[in-house]
């Protein structure tokens, strides 16, 4: 985990680079949705203020040089009692299961003392969202935008200041699950909360960052995160021990909670409004946000997931997201809808800390500086070849021009300009040699 001190604000990023593996190719710089990666001196580097932890670079790196930081299973040893927090998308990683029970049993078999389903907490968040929408009807900034995907929340906080007030100010299902699990375990065991480890099984790096620096609250309820693709083989092994008695763990979550693992699950579970929209995939999310800044389209609720298909498409998942989606739908039809989801005090689910705008687009620290840099930027862009070839280490000529005016790159890092310049010098030399009677050509 790297702490980046950004004007007093600490951002935690869970996407990092393995310098030894990075070959300095341009795959990641071209695919990063916020243009947060540059190749400098033959290696990629991530610009912390711009990174939203979406994991796109992990997906596209052929050298496996981009990785997510998370804990390994040995983190269980740090606690006297451990609770696994599986997200609903985990269940869809396995074949031929009718409901989530066997996954919960297997989690206990691999060493967790207890399991608390994030899907169960998600049902409470659904109920709380319902209450938030109905109690404040007509007084909200519409559409209300879901805050379940931390990539989306962070993206809004750096690029869409006009939408900050649209964010649903509720803690996430993961945090709520951690909070409830800790309380339950503490009551059951008599242990103090710090001896109890609530460990999330994460589909993505963004959720690792979010448990370490939660959004909208100072409280940390989740202690660690392990990647789903790390526990997956262990769980599978336990499940496959034929005839073996797995420890028993009764499921809590119903169909609504399971639905949260796929795109549309959160919004379609709302009964108080049918004016909702759900979009998945980071490029689509950006497209919707751009539109929403100008126009509300009569919408009341918008669910946005950075990954295609929703959390089943997380970069740390195992199964193909589309297959996983079909499996969630099948499981949903097998299990009941919880009429009365676990109740918790609604007010305690609200954010207790404001989310600030962290402008990341300004070219300078002051308006004067930004303005002056912008003027240079415009003429520099004109003089660049516009090929977006990436050889300079920036994703586009325009991004390169920004780097130059900010003092982070040199104009001659552009290979095309450099070549033009050398050709010019060469020609000039040639003609001056000619004029003094030298010639590099062998003509008699």
């Amino acid at each position: 985990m790297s702490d980046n001190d950004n004007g007093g604000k600490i951002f935690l990023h869970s996407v990092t680079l393995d310098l030894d593996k990075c070959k300095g190719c341009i795959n990641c710089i071209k695919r990063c949705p916020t243009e947060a990666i540059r190749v400098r001196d033959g290696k990629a580097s991530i610009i912390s203020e711009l990174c939203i932890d979406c994991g796109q670079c992990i997906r596209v790196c052929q050298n496996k040089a981009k990785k997510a930081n998370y804990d390994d299973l040995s983190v269980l040893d740090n606690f006297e009692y451990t609770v696994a927090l599986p997200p609903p998308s985990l269940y869809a990683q396995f074949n031929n299961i009718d409901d989530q029970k066997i996954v919960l049993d297997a989690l206990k078999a691999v060493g967790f003392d207890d399991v608390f389903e994030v899907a169960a907490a998600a049902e409470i968040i659904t109920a709380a969202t319902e209450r938030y929408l109905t109690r404040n009807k007509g007084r909200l900034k519409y559409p209300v935008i879901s805050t379940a995907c931390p990539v989306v929340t962070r993206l809004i906080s750096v690029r869409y200041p006009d939408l900050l007030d649209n964010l649903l100010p509720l803690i996430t299902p993961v945090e709520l699950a951690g909070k409830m699990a800790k309380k339950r375990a503490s009551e059951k065991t008599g242990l103090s909360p710090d001896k109890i480890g609530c460990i999330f099984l994460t589909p993505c790096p963004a959720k690792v960052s979010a448990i370490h620096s939660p959004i909208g609250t100072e409280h940390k309820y989740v202690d660690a995160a392990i990647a789903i693709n790390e526990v997956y083989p262990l769980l599978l092994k336990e499940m496959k021990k034929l005839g073996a008695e797995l420890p028993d763990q009764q499921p809590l979550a119903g169909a609504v909670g399971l639905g949260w693992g796929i795109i549309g699950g959160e919004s379609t579970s709302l009964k108080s409004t049918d004016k909702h929209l759900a979009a998945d995939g980071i490029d689509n999310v950006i497209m919707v946000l751009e539109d929403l800044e100008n126009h509300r389209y009569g919408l009341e609720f918008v669910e946005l997931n950075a990954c295609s298909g929703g959390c089943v498409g997380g970069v740390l998942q195992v199964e193909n997201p589309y297959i996983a989606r079909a499996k969630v739908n099948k499981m949903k039809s097998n299990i009941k809808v919880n009429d009365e989801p676990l109740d918790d005090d609604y007010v305690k689910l609200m954010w207790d800390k404001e989310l600030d705008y962290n402008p990341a687009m300004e070219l300078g620290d002051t308006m004067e500086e930004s303005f002056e840099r912008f003027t240079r930027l415009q003429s520099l862009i004109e003089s660049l070849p516009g090929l977006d070839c990436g050889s300079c280490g920036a994703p586009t000529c325009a991004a390169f021009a920004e780097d130059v005016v900010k003092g982070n790159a040199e104009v001659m890092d552009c290979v095309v300009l450099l070549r033009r310049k050398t050709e010019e010098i060469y020609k000039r030399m040639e003609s001056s040699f000619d004029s003094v009677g030298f010639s590099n050509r062998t003509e008699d």
Partner: protein
Amino acid sequence: MNPILIRHDVSGEDFSLAGEASVDIKNQLRKMGIPADAVRKAAISIYEAEINLVIHATGGTVEAEVENNEIRIRITDNGPGIPDVNLAVSEGFSTATDEIRNLGFGAGMGIPNMIRYTDEFDIKSTPGEGTEINMTVRF
């Protein structure tokens, strides 16, 4: 310091591109370090005018000029023009077709919003020749 000028031609043909000029100008204004509130007001006003270019005219141009703590916006088109400007600036007035309304536009709040979000607003229109809107947002 010299003024900064950003110019966009808005096509009247392609509805799917409507809004692109305002998104680009908004992003450029942010890069210039202009306060978020002024960027928002300018972007909404440009967006409304840009949509009008597409739904009521046959496209046109959007220009934004930034100098001395103000954003000056000029929107011009050679479309059908507006017969009664006083009517067009009033809240809820719209000649948009049902088809346009079904797309979620045509609430008759475009021009009233431009007036609301800008510090200066001026509209000139000649039927058969076109429309010109000049707006200023100060910061």
